[in-house]
């Protein structure tokens, strides 16, 4: 089996939270893999112990900072968070980082992250869907060479493009504006998007498109009436992928948005904070969780689509 280019059916792998599996009541007879059964008889206690230890190790760092974000700024620096699991807790740190009258407020950066992210997801997804449709179902001169070129551009690390692109933006007088960030994210997201959506599109039976063509439907009609509805899961998958990538990006934002609070996103604000306020954990912890909250919610609610996208496109880091 292959992971790339052939979206796997993972419907049973990662059910969305609440969709079962986590409750443990297990009313329905679950198909039990034989491997698991064999292992269970031999080493279940060890397996359980390993799972618990790893899960604890992986959760503790985040949990520690989460507890810290609700503690008094004095207390944070004089005792460990593990001594304060029962409180006292306060919302002061969050008030500080979100209060817009405060000079160190992160609120403008949250808005910037949102303003940066929405077009940076919508543009590449839509453009790539158009291109992928043409590559998959239209005949035109130079199609195959062009597709290989787009595929190959996936290997270009964005570092290689930053300085010349910045100079270009300076020339166009858009450096340090949202426009520069949107254009950069769109260009950087396109190769993977085209490649992934092309693969999804090839899965749609050609007969459907042929039938529509015979009925006299033009490509524009087919694209909007047939393709977009059928591609919803794929669009969601790549959309979430691109959303997380843009929301969590630091390098593109540092290069094209500058660090003023008029354009820079949360990641840049937090990065600056670690430099200037490296030991002010009451601000850093609350700030970090404000920035984590949005992707976390998106991620948990749309996990199924995200995993599907991951399984289909795991060639890109």
């Amino acid at each position, binding site marked *: 089996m292959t992971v790339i280019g052939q979206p796997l059916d993972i419907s049973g792998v990662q059910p969305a939270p609440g969709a079962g599996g986590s409750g443990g009541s297990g009313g329905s007879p679950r198909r039990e893999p034989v491997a698991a059964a064999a*292992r269970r008889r031999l080493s279940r206690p060890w397996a359980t112990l390993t799972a618990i230890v790893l899960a604890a190790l992986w959760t503790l760092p*985040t949990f520690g900072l989460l507890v810290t974000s609700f503690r008094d700024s004095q207390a944070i620096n004089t005792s460990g968070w593990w001594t304060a699991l029962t409180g006292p807790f306060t919302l002061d740190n969050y008030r500080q980082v979100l209060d817009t009258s405060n000079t160190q407020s992160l609120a403008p950066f949250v808005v910037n992250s949102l303003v940066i992210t929405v077009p940076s997801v919508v543009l590449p997804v839509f453009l790539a869907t158009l291109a992928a449709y043409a*590559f998959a179902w239209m005949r035109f001169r130079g199609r195959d060479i062009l597709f290989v070129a787009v595929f190959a551009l996936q290997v270009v690390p964005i570092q290689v493009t930053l300085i010349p692109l910045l100079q270009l933006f300076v020339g166009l007088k858009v450096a340090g504006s949202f426009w520069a960030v949107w254009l950069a994210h769109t260009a950087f997201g396109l190769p993977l998007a085209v490649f992934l959506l092309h693969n999804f599109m090839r899965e749609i039976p050609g007969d459907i498109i042929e039938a529509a063509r015979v009925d006299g439907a033009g490509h524009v009609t087919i694209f909007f009436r047939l393709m977009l509805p059928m591609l919803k899961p794929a669009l969601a998958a790549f959309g979430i992928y691109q959303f997380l990538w843009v929301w969590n990006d*630091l390098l593109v934002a*540092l290069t094209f948005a500058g660090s003023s609070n008029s354009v820079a996103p949360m990641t840049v604000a937090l990065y600056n904070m670690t430099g200037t306020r490296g030991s002010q954990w009451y601000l850093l912890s609350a700030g970090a969780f404000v920035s984590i909250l949005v992707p976390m919610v998106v991620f948990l609610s749309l996990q199924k689509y995200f995993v599907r996208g991951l399984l289909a496109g795991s060639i890109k*880091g």
Partner: protein
Amino acid sequence: MNVADKLLVMVAALLIFAVIIGLVLFVVALLEKRGARSVGWFFVGPTVLLLVVGLAYPAVRTVVRSLYNAAGTAFIGISNYTTIFTSGDMLVVLRNTVLWVVIAPFVATAVGLLYALVVDGARGEAAAKSLIFLPMAISFVGAGIIWKFMYEYKYFDPTLANNPRQIGLLNQVLVWLGLPPQQFLLNQPWNNMFLIMVMIWIQAGFAMTILSAAIKAIPLETTEAARLDGVNAVQLFRFITVPSIRPTLVVVLTTIAIGCLKVFDIVRTMTGGLYGTSVVANEFYTQSFTAGNQGLGAALAVILFVLVIPIIVYNIRQLRRAEAR
């Protein structure tokens, strides 16, 4: 700009985009009505334009730029590259990058595989997986802050009776064990390992998810037959599981390796590349934007580019072989 203005700019941008695309598609529809055959270029046009301007042209410019001096005024041949492969500081940068690319993929994949195996078919599997998977939603910057707090160090003097209490969990563990607290992010060369740990923490969930899907795709008959032959759990893993998921293992390892090559945010946030922890992607940023040596920065970017290629070629060849089978 206040909030309303920013949102307005965003809506305006989306509208402009919609109008442009609308016009293009309108023209395509008109042409099609008149019987035009090849309208494909209209569909790929915007993408191709953006890729040429945003990726291809800048990449070529950077390659050329890497052959010029710091200010970009004089052609100096391959001097920037000789600097990278001879100067002591740069060799440390290269060594660190090698450490990242070698250690993080293997450890993250091993942890991910182990976890995928131990929770496979267990009660509450989905919830257990979410715990490991969650770090993937956190930005590298956020992860850097989370781990910096884990590594936090408070002044410690072994000759004193009452030292300040440690607030970083790892140092507290050392204290509990009767060991002196460490400056995890300062002590070379081990500080690199503690940065790499953050990448492992993030990528293990990725490895776990993909490997788990691959393990579940192994046909039941295969494992059933092996079990009837009296194969034990370790043998099952060694002779059935690993060979079956080998192509997936390659994909996971290479994907994480590429991520490690380009790692920037973690190093930038946690140490800024100081104390001997810089890596190629971080050094590129430092040279280009703070040290003002754009020639050297460009050369580092090109090296990054060149290092990515063999990993991807290997990946594709492995996949081809797997598909041919």
